[in-house]
């Protein structure tokens, strides 16, 4: 079976978020970039399913040349080959168009990615790709098991989960605990250097909703401490000052 895993190249979760160029660009100074944490779950599960089925696993990223180390890491973790669509990921629609095109061209039967990127948090690309390809899409998926062409899925819903049975081909946006994150070993890192990484140009430049400028939230005032023997004072403040009770 051919599996495609789509990964994002995003700032580490501990990064300080800042903007530059008059608040129109993300300031990457001193920022470490990683495989999106949700994509890392998708990748880990994809590696397991590739091993289970004896198929192949391709990692895809829509990004400029700077994302290649992130794609190489996906190869080190276990993807067989990689595709980089050479463009800044301008919006969800743009990214979904690229993924749908290359997924169709490659004849992938299972497409996994994170439930959302941790930079723009849209959580929309998997659903868009699903509609573009006429495949069912599920997210956020916390369990995905293959039994022949039947796929058993658990999808998180508010306050619980939903168990589903679907047929291949399909698309899933993944989250924990679908698999344990995999750390690349030395053999993986060595072999990643020689695994194929193909760079392709985007099939279209069309966008629908691009971000134009950024803002940081207003700075938080300092905390008002209440003595531990004065819980009634806390209740008074929440009622009368913060007006949240």
């Amino acid at each position, binding site marked *: 079976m051919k599996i495609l895993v789509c990964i994002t190249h995003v700032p580490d979760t501990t990064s300080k978020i800042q903007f530059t160029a008059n608040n129109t660009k993300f300031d990457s100074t001193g920022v470490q970039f990683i495989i999106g944490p949700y994509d890392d779950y998708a990748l880990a599960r994809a590696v397991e399913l590739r091993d289970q089925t004896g198929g192949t696993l391709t990692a895809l990223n829509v990004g400029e040349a700077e994302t290649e180390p992130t794609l190489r890491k996906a190869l080190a973790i276990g993807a067989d080959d990689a595709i980089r669509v050479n463009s800044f990921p301008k919006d969800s629609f743009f990214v979904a168009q690229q993924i749908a095109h290359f997924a169709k061209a490659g004849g992938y039967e299972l497409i996994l990615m994170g439930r959302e990127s941790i930079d723009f948090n849209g959580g929309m690309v998997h659903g*868009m790709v699903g509609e573009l390809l006429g495949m069912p899409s599920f997210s956020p998926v916390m369990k995905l098991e293959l039994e022949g062409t039947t796929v058993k899925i658990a999808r998180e819903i508010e306050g619980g989960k939903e168990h589903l049975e679907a047929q291949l081909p399909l698309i899933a946006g993944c989250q924990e605990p679908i698999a344990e994150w995999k750390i690349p070993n030395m053999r993986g890192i060595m072999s990643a250097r020689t695994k194929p990484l193909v760079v392709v140009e985007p099939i279209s430049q069309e966008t629908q909703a691009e971000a134009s400028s950024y803002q940081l939230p207003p700075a938080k005032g300092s905390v008002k*401490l209440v003595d531990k023997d004065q819980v009634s004072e806390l209740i008074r403040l929440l009622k009368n000052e913060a007006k949240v009770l």
Partner: protein
Amino acid sequence: MSIVVYVEQAAGKIKKTSLEAVSYGYALAEKTGEGTVVAVALGTLESSELAAIGEAGAAKVLHISDERLNAGVIQAHTSAVAQAFESIGANTLILAKSSLGDAVAARLAIKLNAGLVSNVVELPRLEGGFVVKRSIYTGKAFADTTITTTKKILAIKKNAVDQKLDGAKAQVESFSVAIPESDFSSKISATERATGEVLLPEADIVVSGGRGMKGPENWGMIEELAKTLGAATGCSKPVSDIGWRPHHEHVGQTGVKVAPTLYIAVGISGAIQHLAGVNSSKCIVVINKDPEAPFFKAADYGIVGDAFEIVPQLTAALKAAQ
């Protein structure tokens, strides 16, 4: 031009976040000065539930009562809402961000050729294009996003607007759609849902516990405080990782992102990944015995002390005040 709002239900009750979405639609119609809100409600619903949609600001409710839509069948919901949207000739679709809402919105964006923005935190600006403010970097920043298509979809974050409660009586119409059988090819075999509790992503007040609670056996006091406040309970990542609490209670960067009016954190140090899940809260209270806990820097109010003493006292004082 009508604004369509996709309204979700859970077990026959309209979700509160969907009612907020209706109110958002109403506020948007007032802002643009044209059109009214048409809500699309799916599945079996009592008339009292349909009436609540009117109170939230809808002028009309299209009720698609097909009982197969009681469950959140993603593709079937997509087809149903798309048909309603197109039959009205609407240009704007509003919905609340949720596990089903997101999945349906994404497919609708393609089906309707509509520009989609998620995590919308306020009404759009209409000068110089349709500009929507969205939350990004898990609440650490905002982006102004311009939608360039004629049709638009906004998936709104909780608390983007206050829920309206005094709207007029909506005109309720039955609406029938033709949903392809293939939309039902994926079968939902079982649904597990916490019952009788306030759902975390939708709660106005959240009480969360961290490793400072020392073990799952001590969660009684967290639950008691939550119950007294009508709040949902949450937890930090380590707590769900070790299995003290279920995963759906994990609040943070890779868990549930909450935006309550009041967030009370008990025995949580405040790792940056946890803060990312709570930074949209209106008011944060931190109870921690360590005065150096980073969470105090993100809090509005704090108490330094032993949670095992403070939490029961707080619950008792709240009960006495009720």
